[in-house]
Structures are given as structure tokens and as C-alpha cells.
């Protein structure tokens, strides 16, 4: 049973002036525990697709169903709340709240969910340990390297035990060592914790580690390869 069902998604930007067709009739199913890379040339629609799956952007046509919830039938507030409880996000950079420490950043999501403070601290510590940053819990983002910041972002994305984690080019700003460390960690979380990851990338080494690779060209899925 798939956890995400993308049906006939199209996205046309700038409809009134010069329309740009970013996505064109995408159908896609994501199963629990997948480790899926979305690749494709620049402008092929990777970010647009991830944004729509994450409920950050609305499609011009089509639907996204997550665990039986039709995401775009949700009102703004419900949608934000849905993201808080069901989806983890990792962005390319500047993911973290600058004024909060690593631990506070991870705890933030849990506090938003109204969990008791003790539980937030315990889970935050546990996650930072999993991403290998137990000695950096009290550091602010500005005191962490790019790779460390991305790990904290992954820890935060996992904090609420989401259905899946979306990551748009999470390694784009990292050197190759940090890239491979981050990937090792994500794979480990995927294998041990059965966390579903969907990420986009331009980096062939990252693609090589993926278990499923979707290639987008001009807003359409050209190949869908499961390894």
C-alpha cells in the first residue's frame, strides 16, 4: 500500500502572461520505506514536484493523497498542521532557526505539537545522537558547518516521526565528504528506522546511493528505475 499517491499533477506557472508548464500529468506512488531520488536537468520540475507533494504549493490540476488524505482539500490552517504532523522537510540551506541551538531547533517541532518539555528534550537528544551531533547540542546554527546544519535539519525533520521526509537538494551546498556523511546517515535512518526519504539531487554520487530513481524531463517522468 503506497503512502503517497500523486495523480495527474500539472503545474502551470504564470497562467495569465507567458505560461510555463512546469509539471505535466505526473502520476506517482511512493511506498513506505522508500529511498527515492528525483533527478533531471535544471528546470525539469523537481522542486515544483517536491513542493506539491509537501503541500507547499498547489497544483494547477491533479491530486495528492497522503494516507488517504486529499491534501489540497485542506484549508490553509489544516494544511500547515498536516505538514507539522506528517511531513519532514529538509531544504538546500538555511533550514534552521538562527536564534535557537541545535537541540532547540529539533525540539521546536515537538513543542509546536504541544508535547511535554521532558519528552521534547529526550527525543531531541536522541535524534542529535543519531545524526552524530551529541556534542553540538548547544551550538547555534552559525557555529555549525554546512554539513552539521543539514544533519540537524534531518534530525528536526524526523522529530515528529513523519510519514516521509522531503529533501530538495539537501547536499547541494556541501563538499563531497559532508555529502557522503549525510547520505550515510540518511540511509542508516532509512534502513533502521524505516524512514521514507524523497530527495532531489544533481549529484551522481547521491543518485548512486538511491534505491529508486525518478528522472524528470520537461515536467514529465521519463524513467522510473527501482534498484
Amino acid at each position, binding site marked *: 500500500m503506497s503512502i503517497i499517491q500523486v495523480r495527474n499533477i500539472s503545474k502551470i506557472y504564470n497562467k495569465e502572461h507567458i505560461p510555463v508548464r512546469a509539471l505535466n500529468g505526473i502520476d506517482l506512488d511512493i511506498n513506505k520505506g522508500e529511498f527515492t531520488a528525483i533527478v533531471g536537468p535544471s528546470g525539469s520540475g523537481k522542486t515544483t514536484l517536491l513542493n506539491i507533494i*509537501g503541500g*507547499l504549493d498547489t497544483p494547477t490540476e491533479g491530486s495528492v493523497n497522503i494516507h488517504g488524505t486529499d491534501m489540497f482539500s485542506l484549508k*490553509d490552517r489544516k494544511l*500547515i498542521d498536516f505538514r507539522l504532523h506528517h511531513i519532514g522537510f529538509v531544504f538546500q540551506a*538555511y533550514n534552521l532557526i538562527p*536564534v535557537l541551538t541545535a537541540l532547540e531547533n529539533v525540539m521546536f*517541532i515537538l513543542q509546536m505539537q504541544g508535547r511535554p518539555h521532558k519528552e521534547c528534550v529526550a527525543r531531541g537528544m536522541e535524534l542529535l545522537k543519531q545524526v552524530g551531533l551529541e556534542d553540538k547540542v548547544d551550538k547555534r546554527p552559525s557555529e555549525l558547518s554546512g554539513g552539521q546544519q543539514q544533519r540537524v535539519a534531518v534530525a*528536526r525533520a524526523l522529530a515528529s516521526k513523519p510519514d516521509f521526509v522531503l529533501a530538495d537538494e539537501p547536499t547541494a551546498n556541501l563538499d563531497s565528504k559532508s555529502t557522503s556523511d549525510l547520505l550515510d546517515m540518511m540511509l542508516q535512518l532509512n534502513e533502521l528506522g524505516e524512514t521514507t526519504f524523497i530527495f532531489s539531487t544533481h549529484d551522481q554520487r547521491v543518485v548512486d546511493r538511491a534505491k529508486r530513481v525518478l528522472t524528470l524531463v520537461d515536467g514529465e517522468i521519463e524513467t522510473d528505475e527501482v534498484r
Partner: protein
Amino acid sequence: MLYLKMAWRNIWRNKRRTLITMASIVMAVVLSAVMSSMQEGQYDQMIDNTVGSFTGHIQIQQAEYKDEPNLDHSLRINEVLFRQVEETAGVKAVVPRIDSYALAGGLHKTKAAMIAGIDIEAEKHLSEPDQKVISGRYFNSNSEHAVLISAGLADYLNVQTGDSLVLISSGFHGVSAADLIPIKGVLKFGIPDMNNGMVYMPLQTAQEFFGAYNRVTALAVMAQDAKGIHEVAQRLSSQLPDDYKVYGWQELMPELIQAIEADRGSGQIILMVLYMVVGFGILGTVLMMTAERKFEFGVLLSIGTSRFVIGLTLILEMATITILGTISGIIASLPFIYYFNINPMEFTGQAAAAIEEYGMEPFIRFSTDPSIIINQAMIVLVITLLISIYPLIHTKRINPVEAMRH
């Protein structure tokens, strides 16, 4: 707690801007509080100049005296009536007066002067002539045949203590009044009009001079509490016979009230401009704060932070800046206000002349009424908080995808 912590750390992310914003709030509070204290102090002084040193809080007059103030409309008083007034609740002192005009003459010159027939003890509660003697001595009985003359008048007439003064006037029911009377001393008044034309006479001497035995033109009443004047006036009014009219000082001096109101109004326009300037300064900060954190808000919204929480942290940030600024403003304005309360701001030269022209003493003693500072601080606080509502509107419109595109 989390939001307060975030707000607190956020405002110190850009220390300089926060301090500049706070400084502008401090300035606004200080300027408006100091300005208002100065104005209100000036009004208190205007009132005090006339009420506290001449009119009294309340006056009891004969019914027609207000429209035609002359000796024919004076009051007949007796011990019983006097006691009755004196024993009314809230009355501090009763000061009888017989006021009229006379032509005062020295050796070579004459001038119209106001004659104030005073009870030599009671008057110490009102115009305090005993404190104003700069040469000679104060009266020692109410029937003493002597006058005290104001310094300006003495200069003009070229007379001094020990000389005699010629006084010519008409008294009660037109009897002629004339006397040659020794000058016992010279009085220095701060109020120019008084300094240039006052002659003080003991009460009985004045009554004899005017042929107005047992009569006064007014009983001035000092209340125990300047704020309770209205109640005291009502109490007196209900006790006294109908032809005794009781006036609060506001009724006796409507022009003064009007002048104060007009001046207060123009002061408020200046304050409004000040509030606007500060308001726009704060709006600038709010706009920058929201604009430069667009990406951050995009991330927050994406990961599931509600718009309300984002708006709340922004409001908490502005509120913290504003409240800190307002409190510092209050603290910073206190020394100014107290300094100028203890050491009234003095004017010299042309400014002094201009103020004296209005019949006022050329200095301003700032008011320390706490409600003035509190009011000004509250206005600034409310304005800044109102402006801080903007983030709430702003956060309603953030679109995460758009916010995170660079």
C-alpha cells in the same frame, strides 16, 4: 516561554537597529513627557499665580459683584457667618478682602492702584504679603494706620518706606475717601501687574477708608485639597443665604481656563507630530524585520509553524522593544522633570519680557504629576503596539514557496 525566548534572542540579532528603535521610543517618551510636564507646570503656575496668590480657590461674593465689581456690591459680614464658612468641611482658610481702586500719589506723580484691604493673619494663606516685604515691616494689627506698597509702584511714585502716600478714591455709596497714610514697607511681587500697582491696607483701616464698615468685597476660601474645590463650593452654596454667591476659581476666571485649553491644544498638535515621527520610525523597523526574515518565515511555515505563532513572535519582539523603550523613557524623563521642578526653568531677556507681558512670572516649574508621564508613555506604547499589528497582517500573506525563492 519558547516564544519569549525566541523573541528576546531575535531582537538582539540586530543590536544596533534594536537600540536605535528603542532610542527613538525613549526620545519620544522623554520629549512628550518633559514637554507635557512643562506645559502642565506652566498651567499650574498660571492658576497658582492668580488662584493661589490672589483669588483663592473659592470666592463668596454678593450676587451682583461679579458683573459690577464695586464697593456698592460688597458683602456685610459678621462673626457668625464667618465661622459658618470657616467650619465647613474641606475649608482650610477664609480670607476676607475689601478690594477697590484709588489714585495713589507721591510727591510728583500719581497712578491708579488697586487697594487690597486684608486681614493681616488670614492673608498669609493667600498672597503671603509677609513673605514679600523687601523693606520696612509687615503690619501688626488690622487697625493699623499704614500701607504696604508694591515695589514697582513705589519706584514709579518715587516713594519709599517711611514716606507717606496720598490716596484718593470714592467709597461705599459714593462717600469720598481720601487719606495721607504712612508707608510701612515695600512688597515685591513676581507678577508684574501686581508689582506695578498694589497697595495693601489692614482690613479695618481699609473699611474705614472706604466708609464700608463691616463689609468686604469677597471672602476668599482656600480648600484643604485643590482637587476637592467643587464639593466644597457646593457645600458652601447650600449653607449660605441666596444673595451670597459661591464661585469656584474656574468660574471667576473663564479666560484663564480658555487660555490653558487653547495652549494645551496647540501642544497636542506638536505631540501628534512627534508621535507620527516615532510611529514611522517603528514602522520602518517592523517592515525591515519582516522583510529580512522572509526566508526564515518560509521555512517555519513549511515545517508546520502556524501563522499565528509567527505573528506572535514578531509582536512579542516589538512589544519587548517598545516596553523596554517606554520604561527607559519614563526613567530617563524623571531627572529632567524633577530637576526643573526643583530648579524652575528661568527665562531672561526678551523671553522673560514676553512672559511678563502676559502677567506671569518668568520661570516655569515643571509639573511632577505622575499621570502626565504615565499618559505620555501609554500613548507612545499604544501607538507602537498598534504598528506592531502589521506583522499579523503580514504573516497572513506569507507563501512558503514564494518566501523561500531567492
